[in-house]
């Protein structure tokens, strides 16, 4: 890590703490708001909420590790504080690294290299924020009208909304599966293994009423997919 990267990281740390602190505050507000509504209208019992919290926590662990490799690469190039801030707020690690690289190419310097001065790094952070900000501006403008439209449509007797959710999901899942599955035999094996494992565990939970185990479906499927993919990779090379 160059001196310039270290200097910028020591400055950014305070802003990173502020930003990540705000992300936690916002999540806490929405969580409390949802829980208060639930308490008033008794949609879920306390046990169900506890169970949902546990299931969400477990389900978040596996996907969170998908960024390990890219976060470590980012740290070596742009330092820990900037990586923490950019991966924890408004962005995802791979997107941020891609943008940082585009900025340094535009400036004619190597990301994290000798020519990557404090000033160049400031422009890189500007680029990373700029690349994510319009997503939020889009949400700021469109979410409320979208919500109104969805509520209006949902009130109809034969609403399109349930079909909308399913078509959006399968449009995404189908394409994402093909995009990843065609990368190689090991990726295809990962998809197939986790699909079959998740199906088997879902069926077992439904038939046997194993509600506690149902919180672990995603985690079990991820581990199965990763193990099978690694075995396939070691066989096919």
């Amino acid at each position, binding site marked *: 890590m160059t001196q310039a990267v270290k200097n910028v990281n020591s400055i950014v740390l305070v802003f990173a703490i502020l930003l990540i602190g705000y992300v936690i505050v916002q999540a806490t507000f929405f969580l409390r708001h949802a829980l208060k509504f639930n308490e008033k209208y008794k949609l879920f019992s306390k046990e169900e909420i506890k169970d949902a919290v546990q299931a969400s926590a477990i389900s978040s662990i596996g996907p969170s590790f998908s960024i390990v490799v890219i976060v470590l690469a980012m740290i070596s190039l742009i330092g820990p504080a900037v990586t923490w801030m950019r991966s924890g707020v408004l962005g995802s690690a791979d997107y941020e690294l891609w943008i940082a690289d585009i900025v340094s190419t535009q400036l004619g310097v190597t990301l994290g290299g000798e020519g990557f001065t404090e000033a160049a790094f400031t422009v890189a952070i500007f680029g990373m924020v700029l690349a994510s900000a319009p997503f939020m501006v889009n949400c700021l403008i469109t979410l409320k009208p*979208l919500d109104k439209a*969805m509520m209006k449509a949902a009130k109809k007797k034969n609403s399109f909304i349930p079909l909308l959710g399913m*078509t959006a999901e399968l449009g995404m899942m189908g394409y994402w599966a093909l995009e990843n599955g065609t990368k190689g035999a090991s990726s295809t094996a990962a998809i197939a293994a986790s699909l079959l494992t998740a199906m088997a565990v879902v069926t077992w939970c439904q038939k046997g009423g194993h509600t506690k185990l149902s919180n672990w479906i995603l985690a079990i499927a991820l581990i199965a997919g990763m193990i099978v993919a690694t075995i396939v990779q070691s066989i096919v090379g």
Partner: protein
Amino acid sequence: MTQEKNIRADQREIEEAFTGDYTKKVHIVGRFSIVIVLVLSFLPVLYMHFIKGYQMPIDKYLNVAFAITALCIGFWLTEPFTWFPILGSAAMYMGYIAGNVKNIRVPVARQLRSKYGLSAAEPKGQIITTVGVAISVYVNLIILTVIVVFGSFLVSVLPPIVIEAFTYVIPSLIGALLAFRISESGWIVTLKWSVPAIIIFALMKTGTIGFLVDFGMSTSIGITILIGYIIYRTQGGKAKEE
């Protein structure tokens, strides 16, 4: 009969409260949060440029802004629309502030709704999605912080095969999410509604609509929804998840 009427009245009361005060507050706080986070995000740039004097000519900033706009404008315009039907407003505000929408927020929301057999369109589905996504924000930030602080150490102690296995988290995640959909709708419905994505992917790969290659997923989602809507209209609003 009376009991059934009471349940329906309760249901109506819940829906009115949800679409009224609850949702109104979600948008007020969500929009306010976006403004705060936008200001806080640009603050380090302003501080370093104006206070610390880490300055580059304005044309460098403009070049970067033009390059990023040219590359990202399609994502900016389309991506939030694609996740809205799956997540709903509160989870969208959290997701777009904390990031990792596709990789973390969507899977958590799907697993929870699959567990309770709920859709994103109903208040119950929205409440449980909000709880799940909020928890995922905490967990993800804890793990991210651990990786940032101890990442190099972890890599040095973990066997290389474990590190390599992390590269398969995303394909494994896709398989599990497909399994949730299949367990809800069955193999036939899942395959039937995956056909548009298969065709669009093939057209992208063969270069027939290669100009859309950067927006493959958004195109796939948009076209699948459009086909769903056409079928819904032609069947006089009777088409359901089948």
